């Protein structure tokens, strides 16, 4: 493998990692701050992709999909917290697993009822439709670089919010010690509402942005779900920086695994996760809420 293609694979790995991070960060917020395990997270990713498809089809403008995705994601998250998750307070993970499993079935069937079963494509916006030639055979789509940029902006933004803002501190405090956070006057219920709304909106947004890349089809969330679980377990539940490390690790394992062990690519991801957990049962990055 030449140095040149090594760097191309590295770019692939990073770009894949950034998309994964968009999905996984929402999931890890829910897991870390609320202790809620949400199997339906992949389904929300699919919801995002279908929002992108519907909006582009209706209005012909890709840029409208971003606010639409965020708004619908926030609303969806708030509704789910208000009417479902909040009722599980004090229940164990089993209830959460099953509630979200039920949600998967409902969302998947809902998608079929509304959009049918055909796969759909979402056109890349004109301004980003070009490709940059890397070699005489290979070029890199500008849209993928755009996705990278969105991912990096998102990492910085969410990192700053979590690290510097009072809201970030409150979130971290709530994640660490719910009772003490309440004793300090933090309305934890409201925090949960916000976190669920934002966490799900992140994932929906990831789906929106990925739609032109990934195409839009039923059940597209399943794969993403399992992969982002792996990311979170690698990085440590509730840790945003851990999720970043996990995403990068998974991106690398994925891109280079497919290059060097093409027949065992699927195993490698899980093998990596199990190996990490044997050495460090609480994930690579231990601290919560950072």
């Amino acid at each position, binding site marked *: 493998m030449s140095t040149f293609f090594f760097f191309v694979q590295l770019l692939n790995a990073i770009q894949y990692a950034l998309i994964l991070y968009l999905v996984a960060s929402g999931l890890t917020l829910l*897991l870390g701050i609320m*202790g809620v*395990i949400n*199997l339906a997270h992949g389904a929300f990713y699919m919801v995002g992709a279908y929002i992108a498809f519907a909006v582009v089809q209706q209005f012909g403008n890709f840029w409208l999909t971003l606010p639409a995705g965020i708004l619908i994601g926030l609303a969806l998250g708030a509704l789910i917290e208000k009417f*479902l998750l909040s*009722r*599980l307070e004090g*229940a*164990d*993970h*089993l*209830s959460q*697993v*099953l*509630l979200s*499993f*039920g*949600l*998967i*079935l*409902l969302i*998947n*069937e*809902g998608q*079929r*009822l509304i959009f049918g079963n055909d796969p759909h494509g979402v056109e890349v916006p004109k301004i980003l439709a070009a490709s940059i030639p890397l070699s005489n055979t290979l070029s890199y789509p500008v849209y993928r670089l755009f996705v990278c940029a969105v991912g990096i902006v998102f990492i910085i933004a969410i990192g700053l919010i979590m690290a510097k803002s009072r809201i970030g501190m409150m979130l971290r405090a709530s994640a660490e010690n719910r009772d003490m956070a309440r004793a300090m006057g933090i309305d934890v219920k409201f925090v949960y509402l916000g976190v669920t709304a934002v966490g799900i909106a992140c994932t929906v947004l990831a789906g929106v942005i990925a739609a032109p890349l990934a195409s839009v089809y039923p059940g597209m969330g399943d794969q993403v779900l*399992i992969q982002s*679980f*792996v990311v*979170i*377990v690698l990085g440590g*539940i509730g840790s945003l920086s851990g999720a970043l490390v996990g995403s990068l690790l998974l991106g690398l394992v994925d891109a280079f695994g497919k290059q060097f062990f093409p*027949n*065992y690519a*699927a*195993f490698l991801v*899980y*093998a990596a*996760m*199990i190996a990490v*957990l*044997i050495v460090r*049962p*609480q*994930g690579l990055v231990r601290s919560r809420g950072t």
Partner: protein
Amino acid sequence: MNARLEKFDGAFLLLLAVAAAFVPFVLSGYEIKLATTITIQAGLAVALGFVVGPAGLTSVGHAAFYGVAAYILAMMSPKSGPADMLLTAAIAIFGAAAFALVVGAVSIRSRGMYFILMTIAFGQLGYHLFNDTGIGGKSDGSYVQFRPELHLFWTDVSFDKAPRFYMLVYVVVFLVVGACWWLRRSAFGSVLLAARDNEARTRAFGFSPYVVRLIAFVISGGMAGAMGYLTAAQHGFVAPQMLAWHASAFALVMVLIGGKDTTSGPAIGAILLLLAEEILQRWTEHWLVGVGLIIVVAVIAAPRGLVPFVAGLFAPKQAHHG
């Protein structure tokens, strides 16, 4: 578990056992096959309920043990005639238990969500093992050409006929459910509960919570394997999807609907869910909406499950404690 719930639990089990015994006499054809499937799934749910309830381990990977045992039968079955049931069953159950030992040994070190995610990962690993590699027929699955036969000293017993196979399933599931019922009440069950509710106390009594949970996990994994073996024998066909996490989650739904803190609950959950599926499918193409709704409503309305819920209805009115 309080005494009333325990009584209800026992009564439900008895009722189920008696009702199930009538199946080969009152049902025929497809209905016996359906009853066989449901009975096997009930056994799987009860086995899973044993780790979810007393051991407090929310395993989303039990389908892997079920599927591994099924594949062991498929791989051991000759193309030309029936396999030896005792031998293949022993190896399949042992194999499933051994896999459970590996999965458990690694996963039980983690608690809570990590445990859940670890079991999902192991289940998917199992799925890819059979889907991606040449072991056991790849993605299109593999046949068990002939249903295994029981070689006794004086004769060979064939289970080709549906009623007789049902009886075999009935006996095996009866044993598994009975074992779970007994284990929950045994000293081992108490230690398990103690490990779930108060780790420190378990340690003080000289038991390692890790070891106790692992033993329960392996027992349950072996039982799940027995159910997988029966499924492979019933259908004569195995496929990688048997191991995937969706299958595990479905088994968990059964456990939760019925009630994880009882032995009868998971069995009742299995019966209700599979019947609901059967009926909804005839009714609408979008039957999964119905299943999804059942799950969501069950989780919200009766989070402890149906059996404790019913037992609660018969509870004497008590002074309300805040």
